[in-house]
């Protein structure tokens, strides 16, 4: 190995780096970098041709500057030129620059593609390797178009060098990931599978990555890979530690390849062929055995590599979930790791065991480790390890150990990190409910939860306890007594006041016989908390009071006095005031019979999925919890339904709160919390309908803010991009004079828009609503601008979350800058998976030039003076057209104002005509615009004249506005 001197001869580079290191401040560093950038730029621009060495030096400097976090906006052309050099060193640095600095939507891709094409054709393996690396790392669609046909051939050709095959495999993987439609399956697929048999382990490593991805998408076609992978794996695990030479790492044969092969096998169920299956079981047993053998080396590298393979083998065993013997062995192995001195192993063991707990074969075996796991919860110094321990306790919980686990979790909650408290609260609440035999235990547990971590007890949790108490009459008296006692504490959490208020309002009569909790004492106790509570809680308490009026007629006058007080009747909060007024009135005029009917005890809630579970699923992502739930179904208790929105008597006296209208326009957090409840009853209803938060957003009523009666959105339902595009053209016209509305809707998806513009800037909120109850996966909206449009209109947006839950709505913000006037509209392309199918929707985004209009008021005289100034024939565009809509002057006026210009009254001598004026703002120019619309009622025609200082602007505005009348 040659000794490499520091700096390796590139003195300029060394000096520059030293300078940077010596910079005392960020400012000094930036100054030095700018100086260097100027220097390099002038070198690149200079007449003197740079030699390879200098180019390399400068490119290295640019790489270094880029690394420091500075964008490099030049040098790309120079790098592209280096690609066509015949010298390996220059070519190499060119490719390096490109793969680090060029992203896949660069305009240079075409030039780069040319160089790649030449290098691929060169048959020089080194050059081919560089070219393939570049495709694998940049991997744009244009590259896929150019090379997707070529690369499979290189990959399976008999005479391709091993290193080139390796690169080709990952190159193909990249193209398949970015543009699966361009990589056709063909006869190469079967030959790719056989690369698993290749003599060269590097080729097998690369091929395994490729095949794993392909097999996930096309399991049938790559089924043969299973037996090949098993035999390859078997050869590796049974090899002597010297057999694989350089692929042996600290006496472990090909650990990374083994891991990949084990991953590949996890794409499939256990092999059907008994021979293959036997061989695989043998492999897995060998791996488990090796873990028990004395290590071949004391080095930690040896055990790490061995354990990497072991953990992957265990993942496969769990994935197959079919060999009880292996599952139990895996569990025992993990049990050993739980007490290992290395934190990494404890962490991974807890994580693996969590999945193992859901297998019926190993659930019991996992349970034997409960003490160790509880101990981990108490002693681990790493929060992420403790978090794993909580997960595992949750996973191993069943009726036999629920009380112990819930108690330990409650204990831990007192000192738990804030970051994981909410999750623990949810888990405790779920376990307590699911495994409750004795519901007094359940009530105690939840009240404890509120006491210990009240702030982390979400609405779902306390709604749930009320729901359960209402549904089970055996626990109601106990619940009333317990909350009454808990409320005695001088400081109690507001959530406790809510639960207490609700439960006493329903079941306070059950404890009223005891003189220590007489009606008046109950009322005074609750009312002593009233003034410290937030508005929603006070609203709930007012409902409790009116329920008391029915339950305890003897304290009716006390309650009426409270309701009548100024602080209630004249409360600044509309909701509280309204309740006080209505409840007072109700208590005064209604007969006892009516009171008893209206304020009757809540009927039981129909049983359905717990809303807490839904919340936990949302928090953790659907897969983890669902699996757990399914496997545990048979063990779960019977009572645990959720609730349908039940008819709520109390709500009849209260009208919905005006704030409910806020829902739907996702500007605030669009959750239940955003809409204060209309009454205590409907508050429960809102949340109990489990996907409520999501559904209400999509409900028609909540979309008033951008509902648009004139939108014939049903016409636009289409999956065919071509068809959609045509529809979208009409649609764009509909958005010319307004900024909000429904852009697109089909059976699956609704797209709403809300936008605002100011001068040359704008912001558009796009709302994607999932109308189904199924998740959308890999949900990717993309904005597509032609090159032309891109230079005139700058759109910035962030990617949205790739999964959209059923019934949910996600929002995307697009920041818009108009650089110069433009004609086309950008296209919004949305791709996602729904069920098993791939969906593709394209619509034009209604961003039109007139959005950047600012109205200008002017007097008649000024108007005609300017009108004359713009009399050049290029400045005027005129269109005479037939009216498409009834010629109503009021509508016409509204449209002109909606178009963005000022509507100038009493300017035109003919009062039937309309004139307008405004300025189109772009980054590069401001363009004054005058317009005149002359209707001819007899002929049902219009003449529209636009005069601006720029011909293209006149033309575009005239086109846009002509479509409106």
């Amino acid at each position: 190995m040659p000794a490499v001197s520091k700096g390796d001869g590139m003195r300029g580079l060394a000096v520059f780096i030293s300078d940077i290191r010596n910079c005392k401040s960020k400012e000094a560093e930036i100054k030095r970098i700018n100086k260097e950038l100027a220097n390099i730029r002038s070198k690149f621009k200079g007449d003197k041709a740079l030699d390879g060495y200098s180019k390399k030096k400068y490119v290295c400097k640019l790489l270094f500057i880029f690394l420091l976090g500075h964008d490099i906006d030049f040098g790309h052309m120079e790098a592209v030129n280096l690609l066509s050099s015949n010298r390996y060193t220059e070519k190499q640095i060119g490719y390096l620059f490109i793969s680090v600095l060029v992203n896949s939507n660069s305009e240079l891709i075409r030039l780069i593609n040319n160089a790649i094409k030449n290098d691929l054709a060169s048959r020089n393996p080194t050059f081919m390797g560089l070219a393939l690396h570049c495709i694998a790392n940049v991997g744009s669609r244009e590259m896929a178009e150019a090379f997707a046909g070529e690369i499979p051939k290189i990959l399976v050709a008999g005479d391709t060098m091993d290193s080139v095959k390796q690169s080709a495999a990952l190159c193909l993987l990249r193209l398949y990931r970015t543009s699966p439609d361009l990589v056709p399956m063909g006869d190469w697929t079967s030959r790719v599978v056989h690369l698993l048999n290749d003599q060269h382990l590097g080729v097998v490593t690369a091929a395994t990555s490729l095949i794993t991805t392909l097999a996930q998408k096309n399991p049938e076609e790559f089924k043969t890979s299973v037996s090949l992978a098993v035999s390859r794996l078997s050869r590796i695990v049974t090899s002597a530690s010297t057999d694989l030479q350089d692929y042996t790492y600290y006496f472990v044969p090909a650990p990374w390849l083994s891991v990949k092969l084990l991953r590949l096998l996890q794409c499939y169920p256990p092999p059907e062929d008994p021979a293959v299956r036997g061989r695989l079981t043998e492999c897995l047993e060998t791996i488990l055995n090796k873990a028990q053998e004395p290590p071949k080396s004391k080095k930690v590298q040896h055990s790490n590599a061995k354990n990497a393979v072991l953990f992957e083998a265990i993942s496969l065993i769990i994935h197959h979930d079919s060999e009880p013997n292996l599952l139990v062995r895996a569990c025992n192995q993990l049990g050993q790791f739980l007490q290992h001195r290395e934190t990494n192993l404890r962490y991974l063991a807890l994580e693996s065991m969590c999945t193992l707990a859901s297998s019926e074969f190993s659930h019991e075996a996992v349970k034997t480790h409960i003490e160790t796991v509880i101990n981990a919860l108490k002693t681990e110094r790493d929060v992420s390890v403790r978090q794993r321990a909580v997960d595992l306790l949750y996973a191993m919980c069943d009726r036999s150990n629920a009380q112990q686990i819930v108690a330990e979790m409650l204990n831990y909650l007192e000192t738990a990190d804030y970051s994981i408290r909410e999750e623990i609260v949810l888990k405790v609440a779920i376990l307590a409910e699911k495994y409750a035999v004795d519901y007094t235990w359940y009530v105690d547990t939840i009240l404890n939860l509120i006491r210990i971590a009240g702030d982390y007890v979400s609405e779902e949790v306390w709604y749930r306890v009320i729901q359960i108490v209402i549904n089970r009459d055996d626990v109601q008296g106990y619940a009333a007594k317990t909350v009454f006692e808990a409320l005695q504490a001088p400081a109690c959490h507001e959530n406790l006041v809510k639960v207490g208020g609700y439960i006493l309002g329903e079941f306070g009569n059950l404890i009223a016989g005891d003189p220590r909790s007489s009606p008046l004492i109950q009322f005074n106790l609750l009312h002593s908390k009233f003034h410290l509570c937030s508005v929603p809680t006070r609203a709930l308490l007012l409902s409790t009071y009116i329920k008391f009026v029915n339950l305890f007629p003897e304290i009716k006058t006390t309650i009426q006095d409270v309701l009548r007080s100024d602080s209630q009747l004249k409360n600044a909060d509309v909701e509280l005031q309204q309740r006080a007024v209505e409840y007072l009135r109700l208590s005064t005029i209604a007969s006892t019979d009516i009171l008893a009917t209206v304020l009757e005890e809540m009927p039981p809630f129909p049983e359905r999925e717990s809303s807490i579970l839904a919340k936990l699923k949302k928090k953790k992502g659907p897969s983890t919890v669902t699996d757990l739930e399914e496997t545990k179904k048979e063990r779960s208790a019977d009572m645990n339904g959720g609730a349908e929105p039940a008819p709520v008597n109390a709500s009849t006296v209260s009208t919905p709160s005006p704030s409910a209208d806020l829902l739907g326009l996702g500007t605030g957090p669009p959750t239940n919390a955003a809409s204060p409840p209309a009454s205590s009853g409907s508050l429960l209803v809102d949340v109990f309908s489990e996907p409520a938060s999501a559904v209400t957003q999509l409900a028609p009523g909540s979309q008033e803010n951008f509902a648009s009666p004139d939108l014939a959105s049903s016409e636009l339902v289409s999956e065919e991009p071509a068809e959609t595009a045509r529809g979208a053209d009409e649609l764009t016209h509909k958005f010319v004079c307004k900024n909000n509305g429904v852009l697109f809707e089909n059976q699956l998806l609704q797209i709403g828009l809300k936008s605002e513009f100011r001068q040359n800037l704008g912001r558009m909120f796009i709302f994607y609503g999932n109308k189904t109850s199924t998740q959308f996966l890999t949900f990717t909206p993309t904005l597509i601008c032609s090159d032309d449009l891109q230079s005139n209109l700058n759109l910035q947006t962030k990617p949205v979350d790739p999964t959209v839950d059923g019934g949910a709505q996600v929002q995307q913000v697009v920041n818009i800058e108009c650089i110069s006037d433009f004609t086309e509209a950008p296209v919004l392309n949305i791709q996602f998976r729904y069920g098993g199918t791939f969906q593709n929707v394209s619509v034009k985004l209604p961003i039109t030039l007139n959005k950047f209009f600012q109205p200008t008021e002017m007097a008649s005289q000024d108007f005609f003076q300017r009108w004359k100034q713009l009399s050049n024939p290029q400045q005027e565009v005129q269109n005479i057209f037939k009216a498409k809509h009834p010629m109503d002057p009021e509508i016409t006026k509204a449209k002109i104002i909606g178009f963005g210009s000022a509507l100038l009254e009493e300017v035109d001598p003919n009062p039937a005509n309309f004139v307008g004026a405004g300025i189109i703002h772009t980054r590069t120019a401001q363009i004054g615009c005058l317009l005149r619309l002359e209707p001819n009622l007899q002929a049902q025609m219009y003449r529209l004249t636009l005069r601006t200082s720029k011909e293209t602007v006149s033309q575009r505005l005239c086109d846009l506005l002509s479509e409106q009348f």
Partner: protein
Amino acid sequence: MIKFFLMVNKQGQTRLSRYYEHVEINKRTLLEADVIKTCLSRSKEQCSFIEYKDFKLIYRQYAALFIVVGINETENEMAVYEFIHNFVEVLDMYFSRVSELDIMFNLDKVHIILDEMVLNGCIVETNKARILAPLLILDKMAES
């Protein structure tokens, strides 16, 4: 899949960054600063895997230099953890007792080594001799 491969020193200066998914330059700086902050705040007793946003960080410390790899759920934590060490051993072999300075002054070569080992976010080569082969050809050409 490997999302990114970073070498950052204790002062928070990035010495090598390689992203296998496109990340805006300004976001890179923020991400790198946050990642190193997260790693520095951890003690030796804590594990080397950090759940970070929707992915995981695997990190190892060599003297004042941290190597941090971002991975998604399809990678094996332990395998990546040991892969980092393999990478360092390759650097050590080439630079004979590698130091932070070697990495700064030979950024291009470190990139070549990493590109031989990780391609498109996948581990592609682990055999040290084969990893270094193209670099040795390059050195030979530079000498002549």
